[in-house]
């Protein structure tokens, strides 16, 4: 299973970066979302994979998975929403004020 998760992290990273390298704002936002999934998953995986061991303390549980990466990823998910919201509005602002949604300045009409 570890191999599959690692492959998923790699694929999300690669697709995210590829979309970030497209020259428009919307693919960039989508790409950043994919990249945050990859990073969150990576952070989560640092706690190693452990099904059926939720970190809820009880008398019957024999072992628990590592709760710390979960706590970190939880806040990271919420923060990445905040970040996505900011870049969404920035890209919208750029589109509304400049009339195009290119991320590169070499087009010439920005000069």
């Amino acid at each position, binding site marked *: *299973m*570890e191999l*599959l*998760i*690692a*492959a*998923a992290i*790699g*694929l999300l*990273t*690669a*697709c995210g*970066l*590829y979309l970030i*390298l497209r*020259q*428009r704002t*919307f*693919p960039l*936002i*989508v790409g950043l*979302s*994919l990249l945050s*999934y*990859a990073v*969150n998953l990576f952070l*989560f995986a640092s706690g*190693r*994979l*452990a099904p*059926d061991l*939720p*970190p*809820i*303390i009880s008398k019957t549980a024999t072992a628990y*998975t590592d709760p*710390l990466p979960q*706590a970190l990823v*939880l*806040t990271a*998910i*919420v923060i*990445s*929403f*905040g970040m996505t*919201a*900011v870049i*969404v*509005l920035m890209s*919208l*602002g750029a*589109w*509304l*004020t400049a*009339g195009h*949604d290119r991320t*590169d*300045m*070499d087009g010439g009409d*920005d000069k």
Partner: protein
Amino acid sequence: MTLALIAALPFLAALLPGLTIRAGRTACAATSFAASALAFLLLAAKAPAVLAGEVLIYRLDWLPALGLSAGFRLDGLALFFAGLILGIGMLVIAYARFYLSRSDNMAVFYTYLMLFQGAMTGIVLSDNILLLLVFWELTSLSSFLLIGFWNHTAQGRQGARMALAVTGGGGLALIAGMLILGNIAGSYDLSVILTKGDEIRASSLYLPSLVLILLGCFTKSAQFPFHFWLPHAMAAPTPVSAYLHSATMVKAGIFLLARLWPMLSGTPEWFWIVTSAGLATLLIGAKTALFKDDLKALLAYSTISHLGLITLLLGLGTPAAATVAMFHILNHATFKAALFLTAGIIDHETGTRDLRLLGGLRKLMPVTFAIAAVASLSMAGMPPLNGFLSKEMMLEETVHAGYGPAWLLPVLATIGAAYSVAYSLRFLVHGFFGPAKPTPQKPHDPPFGLWAPPALLAALVILIGLLPMTIAAWLVNAASSATTGTAISVKIAHWHGLASPALWMSVAAFAGGALALAAYRPFRHLWDAAPKPDAKAIFDAAMATLTRAATALNDRLHDGSFTRATAIALATLVATCAYAFATATHTAGTRPLLPVTPIPAIGWLLLVTATLAATLHHRNRLMSLLFVGVIGLILSAGFAWLSAPDLALTQITVEVVTVVLMLLALHFLPKETPRESTALRRLRDVALSGAAGLGLAALAYAMMTRATAFPPISAYHLAQSKPGAGGTNAVNTIIVDFRGYDTFGEIIVLGIAALILFALTESLLANGAATRRLAQFAASRPEPAGDRHPLLMVMATRFILPFALMVAAFLFFRGHNLPGGGFVAGLIAAIAFVLQYMASGLGWTESRQRIAFHSLIAAGILTAAATGAGAWIWGLPFLTSDYGYIHLPPLEEFEWATAAIFDLGVFLTVLGAVMQALNSLGRLARRAGERPARTPYDIDMGEGL
């Protein structure tokens, strides 16, 4: 504690001028003066102990792991310099009150001056060398502000920039040098470093460390070849020149040489580098000073020359020479500050500082003349003034130095002294003797406030000159004992007998100096005819070259193309990681792997398909967005499977609001991404991102197939979750309790993001081009596909609202023990409200909204902060939590933790931030012609309604 207070007082006082200026200029000056005086008194109170040989140390650990502590140290050397800084500081503050004109912003001036005073006091009192570096940089910055105080003049701006570039650049070298030094010594505390002299000198890193530190000292103290910035710094108001660029800041380099003298001196490297730099500076400064017509330029070069002299003495590396250096620092500070203040008076009263335009001031300004005469004769080295005493001692030291042939250093020192005599006399003779010349203003003696400070200094010049053993010897002893680390008891005398070589060198210097002045005209012709390198032109050219090179490099990396810069960064990252991987040894991980089971495998297949689809169909933006939603859903299922119920809940709720948000944005944006990159470029991007993805996948796999290198700290969290934090959900107790500080920071970030959204929306709505485009959008919008607010959806969302809120409350309350908590509850509540927006439109919902989203965010952060601060009442650190059990009769006994109130803060902030984000887009939609619905569910009856 007092030591920290002495250093802090000027900084605190820097806050005051802006307020006290409202009570008038005198009040403004008085508060600064009072702070300096208080610091001086505190210092004086500590002086008896220090003079008795004690070293006072005060430590406040800051980041002990990095060796960074707020350590202060008061020994003889620190006392000596701090006394100079605060004492002369008081005089300069008083003088500046009368010097600055009405058009100058006095509050700003005193703020800068106090900032500088604090930084300078900090340097000399620091025990920790990292702290010293912080103060060191602060002096460069405050000096920049003060030189550029008259920033309407080009000289002011250029002089400030040059000083900052030179001293700031030296400061960088110094940081490196000090770090190496600390590394050799194994500590950043001077108290420790001072004991490691032998190790430091024996270290192979001694030379690099020495050179870097000397770069810092030489740039700061204007030593050749970095001396050129000082004359340009004279664009500063004269009180600044007197204080920073003569008496104190330029002596910071000298101070550091003295401070590090026990560790660094005594080697041939030190001897040759420091002595040679000092000697060159001494001669070049003295010679140039003679031919300057501007009073301040003359004094600036003479300052350079005297700094060179002091550096030369420290370079000799003998305790006796270091003692003379200390004595000369004191003497130079008194006579040179007096001279600068006098030059300021002349400028202020006559309207010019040009020696060619001045003359005969002796009769017109008798008081000023008396001060100038005492100070300049002392600078010339005339007995019995204090300048004479230290000059004699200096000449004596050069005889024993052993610098090249025995005659070399004494001869050069005598030549330097002769120049010193010549320019000192020129200042006096050309300025005050001869016939009176017409000046822009009619000269007369200044008011008391202007001449009293230099008069006091001139009195000191005479007193130290007449009674050196009574007035100065104890201070010089304390300073030089602390510098050299050996007990020193100096003998300062006026007469050493006819056999003393210094006497004859002195006589020769006077004769030479007088001759040079008598034959000034032919000398001047020679000087004017000789080619001289223009330091400013060289500096400007060097700066221009550097700027061009930086721009060229920058243009290659960042030509305005975001994708290009990102691709370059990515390629660098991939290459670096590949190199690191290729040059290391690897073994396979041994951790047992989780078997692949069918359902997770199907989920994985879905995830891969959705990711590839989102990428391959990225031109169809809506489609790509939908696939992103699918990925989020599978991820949350994956989290649930991998024992992370909290993450699953958070991921799924965040996914909902993110997709809604992006859909709203897509409403305005183009729906398709055009095909514009070439096949080659796409290939490059696939290769780059593929390599990066492969790398991260390999890293993740390597990590997961190994056990952790150290036992994870979460064992503690799991063990303490119930007994320590009173909750059984370890993830939640980590968030609200163990790592509450992180969470507190996180909700503040979220709040800031929401405020940015608000500000962006405001600025967009105020932007002409944006509103025009929104209006066009409104005109060209397609017909809606059906009802805007369908009845069924409205009814359903109304029905759902209380249930959704109940679910949110339920998850919130159980969060401490079972999956849930403030983050998830906030998101669910937000979704419940967003549904109302979607069903009935922005206008209808907004008109029923009582609380602004900003208030929610603020209330959330304040609640969290108040919960954290509540711990202070019981004398516990910020965010210490507590819990207990409450028994209310009809209910069962239940548990209540303060962390729950903190979680309420999280809940409110998350709710406010999410709503703010969606509301921002909603406001744009309204500008784009979205009409507020008049009824909750308008069955679309067409335009007639």
